[in-house]
């Protein structure tokens, strides 16, 4: 009789090649169709969060730089808006095509600069960014079909501030509808992830987009705050934290400036006892560990029906043990690097608070590289609805498990949040899924799936998760004003 010994099956490293990536040593501000040296800004390195090595030096815009960008945008906008829609469409189609052509390069740079697994930047971020440009290109000459009979005109010059979790994709969500509607746009990428936006600036040049129609002005919160308050801006679109969103709304009080906010979340992912549990576990993993949990709509509050709670937690824990944490450029990596030291500290502080408040923590034991910012997938059980880890957005690979007995209790617990961005429902009963979906205060509800995005599907939040929608015809409206209103 042979004795079967256990064999450790491991993956060989499968790093993505980087030799096709052409990064400059230093990037200027993209203003008036060209890269310029900052006038009163400065240059800062952008680093790879997986190695802490600098990737390039990037100009941050100062107030005078923003003034110049706004001036160039104001000069360019009337002619851009006066173009027939089909001609604006052609520029956006070109941008979509160029993103597709440079997709692999963009994916690698996205993973280098932001720490997300290459599998995600390659399969999700970059293709979706191209798809957004393609979708809104098609709207440029069909606006009248997307605005329910209203007479509309572009807002003018719009300021757009995007976060570091989906740098190029968020830039696409912002720029594509704004440009399709005839606006000029000034985009501020996040301080830790400016590189793909700067490659997008190169793409705007390759597409021969008229100078001034798009400006890319990297910087930190101070740059964003200046942009928000700058004269000559007709609308602000912001994606980021609820705290900063509140500051922006306050700053714009009493001013005739349009505003849309896509803010934080503490989304409930609800698993009913009649769900296909293995499928649900995959969905839970995708919901919270996708992009290291740096996702505003992450399913960070896992609500499990009591009768199956132990079973689901056991399956989830087993599944979490198979997640591969490490080099974002490795094609087998599931969970990459935390985006910045600052974010890592925030995650660590909230996790510590969870332990202090009495929740039970389990963190996957795995080797992580010595340098860089890492946080292993973590699960909290025995969480009470009042715990900070059940209330506050962690924005990391940390899931808090709560339980419920009845459907009514699930709905009540899910809605017991100041946020209302997204929710997940896992059940094999369609009638129940739709009933629960109707009762949830959330802008997006996924049934038996999670974290799906599409340019045709509106995305945005209820309550303190913000207002305004991106995607589909609803995404046009924030970039248009009703004539005579």
């Amino acid at each position, binding site marked *: 009789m042979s004795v079967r010994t256990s064999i450790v099956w491991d993956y060989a490293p499968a790093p993505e090649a980087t030799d096709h990536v052409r990064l400059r040593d230093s990037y200027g501000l993209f203003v008036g169709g060209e890269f310029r040296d900052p006038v009163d800004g400065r240059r800062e390195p952008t680093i790879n969060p997986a190695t802490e090595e600098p990737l390039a030096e990037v100009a941050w815009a100062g107030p005078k730089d923003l003034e110049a960008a706004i001036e160039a945008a104001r000069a360019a906008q009337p002619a851009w808006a006066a173009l027939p829609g*089909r001609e604006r*469409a052609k520029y956006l189609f070109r941008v979509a095509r160029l993103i597709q052509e440079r997709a692999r390069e963009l994916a690698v740079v996205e993973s280098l600069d932001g720490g997300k697994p290459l599998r995600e930047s390659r399969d999700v971020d970059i293709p979706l960014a191209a798809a957004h440009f393609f979708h809104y*290109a098609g709207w440029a000459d*069909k606006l009248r*079909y997307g605005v329910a009979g209203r007479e509309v005109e572009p807002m003018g010059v719009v300021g757009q501030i995007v976060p570091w979790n989906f740098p190029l994709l968020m830039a696409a969500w912002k720029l594509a509808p704004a440009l399709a509607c005839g606006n000029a746009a000034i985009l501020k990428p996040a301080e830790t992830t400016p590189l793909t936006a700067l490659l997008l600036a190169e793409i705007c040049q390759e597409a021969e987009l008229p100078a001034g129609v798009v400006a890319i002005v990297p910087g930190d919160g101070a740059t964003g705050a200046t942009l928000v308050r700058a004269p000559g801006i007709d609308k602000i679109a912001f994606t980021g934290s609820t705290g900063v969103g509140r500051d922006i709304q306050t700053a714009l009080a009493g001013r005739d400036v349009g505003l849309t906010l896509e803010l934080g979340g503490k989304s409930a992912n609800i698993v009913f006892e009649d769900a296909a549990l293995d499928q649900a576990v995959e969905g839970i993993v995708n919901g919270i560990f996708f992009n290291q949990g740096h996702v505003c709509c992450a399913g960070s509050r896992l609500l499990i029906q009591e009768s199956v709670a132990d079973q689901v937690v056991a399956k989830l824990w087993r599944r979490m043990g198979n997640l591969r944490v490490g080099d974002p450029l490795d094609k087998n990596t599931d969970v990459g690097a935390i985006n910045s030291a600052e974010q890592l500290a925030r995650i660590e502080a909230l996790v510590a608070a969870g332990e202090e408040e009495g929740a039970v923590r389990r963190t996957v034991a795995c080797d992580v590289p010595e340098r860089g910012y890492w946080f292993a997938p973590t699960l909290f059980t025995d969480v009470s609805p009042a715990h900070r880890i059940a209330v506050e957005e962690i924005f990391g690979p940390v899931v808090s498990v709560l339980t419920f007995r009845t459907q009514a209790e699930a709905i009540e617990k899910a809605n017991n949040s100041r946020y209302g961005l997204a929710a997940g429902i896992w059940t094999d009963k369609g009638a129940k899924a739709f009933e629960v979906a109707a009762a949830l205060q959330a802008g997006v509800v996924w049934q038996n799936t999670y974290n799906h995005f599409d340019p*045709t599907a509106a995305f945005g939040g209820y309550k303190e998760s913000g207002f305004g929608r991106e995607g589909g*015809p609803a995404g046009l409206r924030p970039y248009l004003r009703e004539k005579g209103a």
Partner: protein
Amino acid sequence: MTRLSVRKTYKLWIGGAFVRSESGRYDHALGRDGAHVANLPRASRKDVRDAVAAARKAFGPWAARTAYNRGQILYRAAEALESRAAELAARSVSRDEVDAAIDVLLHYAGWTDKIHPVLGGVNPVAAPFLSFSVPEPTGIVGVVAPDEPELLGLIAEVAPALAAGNVVVAILSEKWPLGGLDLGEVLGVSDVPGGVVNLLSGRRGELAQALGAHRDLNAILDAAGDAELSAELDRLGAETIKRVRHGRPAATYDEAVADSLSRLEAVTELKTAWHPVGA
């Protein structure tokens, strides 16, 4: 020594293949000056049936593609047409017409993923049900192209049908068929799958009759501008309740897109689904 040119043999485009008419018949294609330019196949009733069979085979997979993918493919077709624009303009069609045709393709490429929000929607029914209406392609669309403009007038009918997810059997301009046959070669090197578009040259009266009478055809877009033929297509269509739309030939870009939603609607079904909400 002057080089002797290699002349082109014009063929029908059926099921993704360039074929001669099964009948072996041919017609003379004349230039605008009345001189003989080429021979071209005169398609038969059997060629119409072959084209419909090829279209039926292609319909399922084409309709099953995502709207995004169909949009990409139509965009690619516009790219391919742009790259051949000078050549088409040199032979048969004016450059302005080719340019307009490219832009019409682009316009409808942008429609593929917008038909649903514009024509479909959720119905606020007075009962605990989620009821929604979804546009779906009608199926095989027969196109009777106008004599002029031969290319733009054809694309103005074909593009919306494709954008909505249909497949097409088109009878080309009888008077100026070369632009249409050239289009087949353009689409043949784009990503349009074989059988999604089928192009037949020949005598319009004969072919339109066969097409209109075909029981597996779902809709007819008639842009020939021939009142007698229109009435005949109406009568033939009634046999299997075909959707029949008559329109003037689109002579400009604006004419091809001003009523784009109506063009899409003409080859679209609306499916309403009901799903219980709650117990």
